[in-house]
């Protein structure tokens, strides 16, 4: 929780508005505070409610929808509501994971915005008692033709690398999409996966604290940066003349974060903690009130004990500062000496700032006087909740579905254009800036469908993929969300791993607009249905609203982070054709479905039509075939057609593996539809000739159509009857497209 939400665009000037409105609190919310307290609130109290009841911290617009998501499953250890979700991956290990956005700060200062986004999600994972072992970074930007978009893109990528590389957590995957509506509003989501021994996980979340337990703040000192990040303090004055010195952007200190990781894990391993909480949105206010509320207690918080970076900070500043790289531990007084020693060894500052007390009251003192007093739960659990009006977007009249647009162009040219489209072309320029191998467990990094990292000391591998389908979502938010889940699961399944559970980040516009609220509710419905159909429960996530400017919102884009399990990582299936002489099969069927496709946008210049249909039973059946075949070592390669369809999937397998192919695409569909349709629930696989029967057997057993397309081999690439090219030419087009757009030649 660390993303500023709700730019203060609707705020009137400070003079004509009472304080609560300047803090982003509505009049009825103010009344609710007065009712809770039984008196007029003090300024610091208002600042605390303003931060905690902000959209970002309270989920007041989204809560009622999030409750409808499927959250239960055999492997789920910790569902939504904690700092991160956790699933059981066997051998006593828990996989802890969560995704979060840092889009708004990144739009102002891309390097630091993205860097501090990495820091925030990593602390969520640490606070569950897990060692962070992988990062993924799904990103969305406006077109690179614009200088500002290039600046944002290069800055965000550098920031993610700058922070992630320096803390020793490999960045193993992600996604990059470009779309017009992201020009003013880039989406910067980051997912982190951690591993914990299941028993340590319980320790850190059991909150065995009791009255007299100490709340210990450790890590960086508290400054005036990022105050009001989550509410609107940054865009309004609290009291006369006190805002000038408060920067809204923060500078990340990955070195401090690395020390936090090591110190925190040592504290947990040695059993020195009763609870652990990261500091993100709403800073100390959130961490202290949540810790107290979870323990069903109150707390006595002394702001004079907080180590400050600057003199003269006011109570509300200390309470709501979002200074980075801080953690809050709950410690039994008898363990304080040991905790202090561990922090000292790692060079971290430490201070006892609060004590847990019986009863539910949170009392805050500053300069020796009480500045705030309220029930802790009133901040965390008793905030407002809204059922905001929704209104379906009107259907666009007279727009032709590109599926039925006659195409008279040259398919070879179209193919090369789609291959070079920034959404499709190689993202090597990005992922080579990330350390993807530190910790020594990366079996497969970026470049394939899902990354695979080993569970240390076992043969198990975790397969990870992030996927968003903005273009589909723009045309049908229900289908967009469902497809995102299905594609994420498919990306995991093609590597031979069983999809287990998801996290997500919901990237949307202003929820106060009925059209956006409708998109949101439809997306939740699509995500819920797909997660149920594929048996991949939701363990957590994050909602990022207000991604719009001048009334123009980003496309409704839930980004899904899928975690899958492969029992023996040595059986992982690569995406590339590993050798010549293999038979190439298409599993699944191609339909006339070009609505919202890459072909439609790149070649026809339209984002229109109906996205492909999605049959979740067919999708699940495909996964079963892939898993069965992979576990018997039948598959030499497997890759799923996504943006750009079958033609691009074949090309990518050839480029990745370094072997050409010859295929015949038979059927009644026009050539461009065969090549570029983005029908779901398909995979392109290659098998050794002696394994073809094995594959076909599985396909028949699970009712999945399997069509033999041709063979791998040679340096030529032949679409029989259509066109011919070479692996060399494909690679050239695929690898140089992005560097060229950035004005580089692609030299090392």
């Amino acid at each position, binding site marked *: 929780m660390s993303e500023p939400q709700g730019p203060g665009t609707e705020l009137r000037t400070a003079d004509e508005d009472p304080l609560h409105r300047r803090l982003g609190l509505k009049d009825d919310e103010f009344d609710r505070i007065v009712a809770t307290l039984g008196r007029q609130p003090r300024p610091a109290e208002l600042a605390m409610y303003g931060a905690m009841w902000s959209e970002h911290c309270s989920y007041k617009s989204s809560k009622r929808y999030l409750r409808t998501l499927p959250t239960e499953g055999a492997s789920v250890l910790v569902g939504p509501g904690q700092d991160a979700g956790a699933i059981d991956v066997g051998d006593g290990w828990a996989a802890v994971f969560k995704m979060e956005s840092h889009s708004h700060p990144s739009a102002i200062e891309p390097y630091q915005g993205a860097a501090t986004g990495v820091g925030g999600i990593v602390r969520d994972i640490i606070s569950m008692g897990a060692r962070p072992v992988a990062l993924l970074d799904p990103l969305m930007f406006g077109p690179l033709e614009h200088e500002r978009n290039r600046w944002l893109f290069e800055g965000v990528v550098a920031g993610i690398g700058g922070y992630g*590389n320096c803390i*020793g957590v490999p960045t193993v995957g992600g996604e990059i999409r470009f779309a017009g509506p992201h020009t003013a509003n880039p989406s910067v989501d980051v997912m982190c996966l951690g591993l914990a021994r299941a028993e340590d996980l319980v320790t850190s979340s059991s909150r065995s604290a009791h009255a007299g337990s100490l709340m210990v703040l450790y890590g960086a000192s508290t400054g005036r940066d990022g105050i009001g990040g989550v509410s609107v303090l940054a865009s309004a004055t609290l009291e006369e003349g006190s805002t000038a010195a408060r920067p809204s952007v923060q500078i990340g200190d*990955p*070195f401090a974060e690395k*020390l936090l990781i090591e110190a925190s894990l040592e504290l947990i391993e040695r059993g020195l903690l009763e609870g652990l909480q990261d500091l993100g949105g709403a800073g100390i206010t959130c961490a202290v009130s949540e810790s107290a509320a979870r323990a069903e207690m109150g707390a006595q918080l002394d702001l004079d004990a907080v180590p400050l970076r600057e003199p003269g900070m006011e109570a509300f500043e200390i309470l709501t500062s979002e200074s980075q790289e801080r953690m809050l531990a709950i410690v039994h007084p008898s363990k304080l000496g040991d905790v202090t020693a561990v922090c000292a060894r790692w060079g971290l500052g430490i201070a006892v700032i609060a004590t847990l007390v019986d009863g539910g009251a949170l009392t805050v003192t500053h300069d020796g006087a009480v500045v705030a007093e309220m029930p802790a739960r009133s901040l965390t659990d008793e905030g407002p909740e809204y059922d905001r009006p929704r209104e379906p977007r009107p259907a666009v009249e007279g727009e032709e579905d590109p599926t039925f647009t006659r195409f008279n162009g040259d398919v070879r040219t179209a193919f090369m254009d789609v291959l070079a489209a920034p959404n499709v072309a190689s993202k090597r320029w990005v992922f080579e800036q990330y350390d993807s191998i*530190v910790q020594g467990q990366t*079996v497969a990094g970026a470049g394939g469908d899902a990354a695979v990292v080993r569970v240390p000391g076992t043969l198990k591998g975790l397969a990870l993929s992030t996927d968003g389908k903005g273009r589909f979502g723009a045309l049908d938010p229900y289908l967009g969300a469902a497809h995102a889940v299905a594609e994420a699961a498919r990306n995991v399944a093609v590597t031979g791993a069983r999809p287990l559970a998801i996290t997500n980040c919901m990237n949307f516009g202003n929820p106060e607009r009925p059209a956006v609220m409708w998109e949101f509710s439809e997306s939740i419905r699509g995500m819920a249905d797909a997660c149920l159909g594929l048996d991949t429960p939701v363990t957590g996530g994050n909602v990022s609203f207000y991604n719009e400017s001048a009334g123009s919102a980003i496309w409704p884009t839930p980004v899904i982070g899928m975690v899958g399990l492969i029992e023996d990582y*040595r059986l992982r299936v690569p995406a590339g054709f590993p050798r010549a002489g293999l038979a190439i099969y298409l599993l699944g069927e191609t339909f006339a479905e070009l609505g919202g496709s890459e072909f439609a946008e790149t070649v026809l210049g339209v984002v229109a039509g109906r996205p492909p249909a999605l049959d979740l039973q067919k999708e699940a059946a495909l996964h079963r075939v892939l898993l069965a075949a992979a576990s018997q070592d039948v598959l030499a390669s497997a890759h799923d057609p996504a943006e750009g369809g079958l033609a691009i999937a074949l090309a990518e397998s050839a480029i990745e593996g370094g072997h050409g192919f010859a295929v015949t695409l038979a059927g009644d569909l026009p050539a461009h539809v065969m090549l570029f349709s983005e029908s779901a629930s398909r995979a392109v696989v290659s098998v050794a000739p002696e394994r073809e029967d094995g594959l076909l057997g599985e396909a028949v057993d699970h009712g999945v159509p399997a069509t033999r397309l041709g063979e791998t081999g040679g340096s030529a690439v032949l679409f029989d009857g259509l066109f011919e090219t070479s692996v060399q030419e494909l690679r050239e087009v695929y690898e140089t497209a992005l560097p060229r757009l950035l004005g580089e030649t692609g030299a*090392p």
Partner: protein
Amino acid sequence: MTARTPRIGVITFPGSLDDRDALAAVATMGGTGVSLWHGDHDLRSVDAVVLPGGFSYGDYLRCGAIATHAPIMEEVRAFAAIGGPVLGICNGFQVLCESRLLPGALIRNRSLRFVCREVTLRVETSQSVVTADLTPGETLAMPIKHGEGAFVARTQELVRMRSEGLVVFRYAGADGVVDDAHDPNGSLENIAGVRNAAGNVVGLMPHPEHAVDPDVGATGGQSVFASLLSSALAVAGS
């Protein structure tokens, strides 16, 4: 000579990242890994010392600059002075240059970007503790991952390095050809690793510790660690 396994120390500085990976590589190659702590004045009777990769002290100011002043570095200097094998990998290489135990310095990659990819190294000399078992001209595949790995030295120093054969590894093509197209970071003369005059102190930017396990990548690091282990035993036995 004894049959005992060599004890290889790996220093953890605040911000070291590949310390665990280096310990794992030592174990994989048959040595005993020993953790060393930056704040100690104790090398725990190891037979060789590895300064691992990472971002010691955040690499703020200059890579490796602050680590140079850590208490353990006094012990490393003394150990190096009596011929003890010392290997600096990536950030460890930067620390050794900053400490003047190795010639030259490492500055930002010419692309100004961090780069993580597999490269090929050509072995330039067998007169070092990590190439004693290798033949000049041989190639090794292993990954690089750094933002400040461009090796630089002033002309005079470079001339001396050439004449004394202090270059241990150069970036090359898979066929061993050394040219600008295979220089991933703008290093002078494709220099990827260097040694001191005695050959007991070596630093390189690529990561041999990430190239010993075939399940997660290349294996060019195996022979580097094998040489280090045998050099460690040889020095200990002499």
